[in-house]
């Protein structure tokens, strides 16, 4: 038997290893290419913010990447055997299964005289051939391609990270639009400016008729601004809490911690200033507070400052660091500014909502969305003096209340928003005491129960319903109430401050509740 059969086996082993490496490179290059294509495709389909945990495309990308990884692994389960290498050698060199048969008879010896001939020929052949020539690996091209794909992935990934809000989205579980506004300092400044602009517009609209298109646009703008300032408020509260945690270790600052946690920031600022003895800072701060709408400090800077201050405060050993305290004061002031912005935006939103929608259609979520204490659906004792009103809405509410037969107690306690909208307009026009809705309701109820019409000129019967049990009780008050109301109506129309265009509306309002010709 031939003894140098290891020439054949070693040749086949070299071929095997080279085949494996070649396949590895090919597969890796291919999979990287597919991954790149996938990344770019999803970036195009998913938009700028797809690389965020809220985006479905992010999970699609993760799933497909894992799928590609598993497919890649599965393709390497069946590695190359020596028989595979022998088949390749036979095919490449047109040996007609010689090496394959030889390898078989090396591993499975046979006594046939022909086997020795076969092995001898195969050994001679394997000594001559070069596995490196048979299985060529294009290292350079594969390396360059892999490098190109990896580079593309890094570039595309960096670009996407810049665009996306992945980091902030992980910190604050809110919508991506909001997080974008949180990071962008310019957008914040614009929001604050826009807040002022909206306030001005609302002022104008209060004195003029509200156009629905303007209302919609203002509501949209307010929503964006609200999202932005609410985010910053959350950030501010986090910062305050962090400061409180840093201070709570020291018993002498217990009151300051309490003030911080209950958001009595002015009080906290005063106490810290007293603790440091820096009275000048109080005066400076008081002087500079008035004109600020919002701080231009970015969230990152704010958080960075808070972190630094917290670590400084926590590291107090024997002496108090004045510099740290001053920084704490500055940060608290920044936080205060952020919270003020939120309050400002909230007020504007309330004003907008009161003007734009019938009172009983206001959603309780509108104001309370970000933890607002005031619920607009809760009863309020009197109308807002600032007077954001809707006379039509108030009339509608009032008519509905009469139709339902609501009692005086109902109009005292419930649906106050409607009452305010109906009465405050007149009060503002008069410049005097705001008449209660109760008066109007009583007047209407008494008149209807007395058989008078409700101001309709078409001769149709009034559709009002009035419970009879209230009729007798209100008789005595009718004269006074009617007089007062007539006076109020005439007074309102005579006011010079009443816009000319609004006078017809006011007139119609009073016609609805009085006989025609009384005004």
């Amino acid at each position, binding site marked *: 038997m031939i003894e140098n059969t290891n020439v054949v086996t070693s040749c086949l082993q070299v071929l095997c290893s080279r085949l494996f490496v070649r396949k590895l490179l090919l597969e890796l290059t291919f999979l990287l290419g597919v991954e790149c294509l996938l990344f770019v495709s999803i970036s195009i389909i998913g938009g700028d913010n797809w690389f965020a945990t809220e985006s479905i495309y992010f999970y699609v990308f993760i799933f497909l990447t894992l799928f590609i990884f598993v497919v890649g692994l599965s393709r390497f389960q069946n590695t190359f055997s020596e028989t595979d290498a022998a088949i390749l050698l036979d095919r490449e060199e047109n040996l007609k299964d010689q090496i394959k*048969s030889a390898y078989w*008879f090396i591993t499975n010896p046979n006594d*046939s*005289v*022909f086997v020795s*001939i076969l092995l001898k020929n195969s050994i001679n052949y394997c000594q001559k051939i070069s596995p490196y020539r048979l299985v060529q690996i294009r290292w350079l091209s594969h390396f360059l391609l892999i490098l190109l794909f990896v580079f593309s992935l890094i570039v595309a990934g960096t670009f996407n990270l810049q665009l996306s809000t992945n980091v902030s989205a992980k910190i604050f579980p809110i919508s991506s639009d909001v997080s974008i506004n949180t990071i962008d300092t310019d957008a914040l400044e614009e929001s604050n400016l826009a807040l002022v602009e909206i306030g001005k517009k609302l002022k104008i609209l209060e004195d003029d008729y509200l156009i629905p298109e303007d209302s919609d646009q203002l509501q949209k703008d307010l929503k964006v601004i609200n999202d932005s300032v609410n985010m910053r408020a959350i950030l501010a509260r986090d910062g305050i809490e962090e400061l409180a945690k840093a201070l709570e270790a020291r018993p002498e600052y217990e009151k300051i911690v309490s003030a911080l946690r209950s958001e009595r920031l002015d009080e906290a600022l005063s106490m810290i200033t007293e603790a440091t003895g820096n009275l000048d800072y109080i005066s400076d701060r008081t002087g500079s507070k008035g004109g600020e709408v919002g701080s231009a400090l970015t969230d990152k800077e704010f958080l960075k400052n808070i972190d630094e201050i917290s670590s400084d405060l926590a590291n107090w050993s024997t002496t108090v660091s004045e510099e740290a305290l001053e920084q704490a004061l500055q940060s608290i002031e920044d936080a205060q500014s952020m919270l003020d912005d939120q309050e400002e935006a909230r007020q504007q939103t309330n004003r907008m909502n009161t003007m734009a929608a019938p009172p009983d259609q206001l959603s309780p979520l509108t104001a309370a969305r970000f933890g607002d204490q005031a619920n607009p659906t809760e009863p309020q004792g009197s109308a807002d003096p600032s007077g954001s009103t809707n006379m039509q809405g108030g009339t509608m509410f009032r008519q509905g209340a009469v139709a339902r037969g609501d009692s005086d107690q109902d109009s005292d306690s419930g649906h106050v928003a409607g009452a305010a909208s109906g009465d405050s307009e007149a009060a503002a026009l008069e410049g005097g005491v705001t008449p209660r809705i109760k008066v109007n309701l009583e007047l209407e109820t008494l008149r209807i129960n007395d058989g008078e019409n409700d101001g309709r000129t078409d001769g149709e019967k009034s559709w009002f319903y009035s419970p009879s049990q209230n009729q007798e009780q209100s008789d005595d008050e009718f004269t006074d109430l009617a007089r007062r109301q007539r006076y109020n109506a005439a007074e309102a129309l005579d006011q010079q401050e009443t816009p000319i265009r609004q006078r017809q509306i006011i007139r119609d309002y009073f016609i609805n509740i009085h006989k025609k010709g009384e005004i």
Partner: protein
Amino acid sequence: MSTSGEEQLEAFQEKFGQVKDEVSKVIVGNSEVITHVMTCLLAKGHVLLEGIPGVGKTKIVQTLADVLDLSFSRIQFTPDLMPGDIVGTNVVNEDEAGKKSFEFQSGPIFANMILADEINRATPKTQSALLEAMQENSVSAGGKTRTLDQPVFVLATQNPIEMEGTYPLPEAQMDRFLFKLKLDFPNASELHTIVDRTTQKTEPTASRILEKVEILKMRDVARDMPIAKPVQDYAVRLALATHPENQNCHDLVKKYVRFGVSPRGVQAVILGSKVSALLNKRSYVANEDVRSVLLPALRHRVLLNFEAEAEQLETDKILNAIIETVSDA
């Protein structure tokens, strides 16, 4: 013959080449048929020659009998031929003393080369008389089993066109033949040569080339040819691919094949491949050898269904489709 492998290879090829050349002196064309007939002889098989009348089926056998130093007998199969006419019968023989005894009168089957001419003209009963001789190389007659002298080589011929009054060979009988060879009509140049050779005063004759002992040795050499498992696996996969119940079989197989090849078919492929390897001067069997003998070895073992018969589909087409389908890796 030398014991060295290389010498055996050379001697085998030399002898084979001499026989083929000698036969080619008489037979024009049909080189592949001659090779396959010799392959059957050296693979210890039998061959069925099919072709239209006059293409030289019987002539090939007669010429081969002349070249080989073997006893030759011809049996012309007719409808009234009886098994006893083939295997022989016991006849009463009376000696000088007047004592009578049975004596076995051997039939034409007791020869090394048996030409069963137009085998499909005899009844199946008579056709079956060849079965034992072909498979076990023995004959049972008169209560005794007699072994035939080696080598036993049955060459049968049949006419595929004239089917009236014939008895198609039973499947069991067909399966006994190692190869089924088809003789095609010669082309123009071959026809000219045939005419030139056979219409002159003297016809060419073949001289005896190969002795019986040499044939037997060549048979042993062929059996000694090694075949690697991957190549054998290829032959097995090809055979399995002819079975319609195989899920991965070709569509043609599913549609037209009633039964696939028997294990005897795989044996025929491997034996034929070994001789083919020797003829191709190889010391091992390659996939190419398997493919070269696949059609003659399997074409009569694949049973087609009625639909294939109706469409006059030949098994060669199905086998070629299988060869293209089954991977040789």
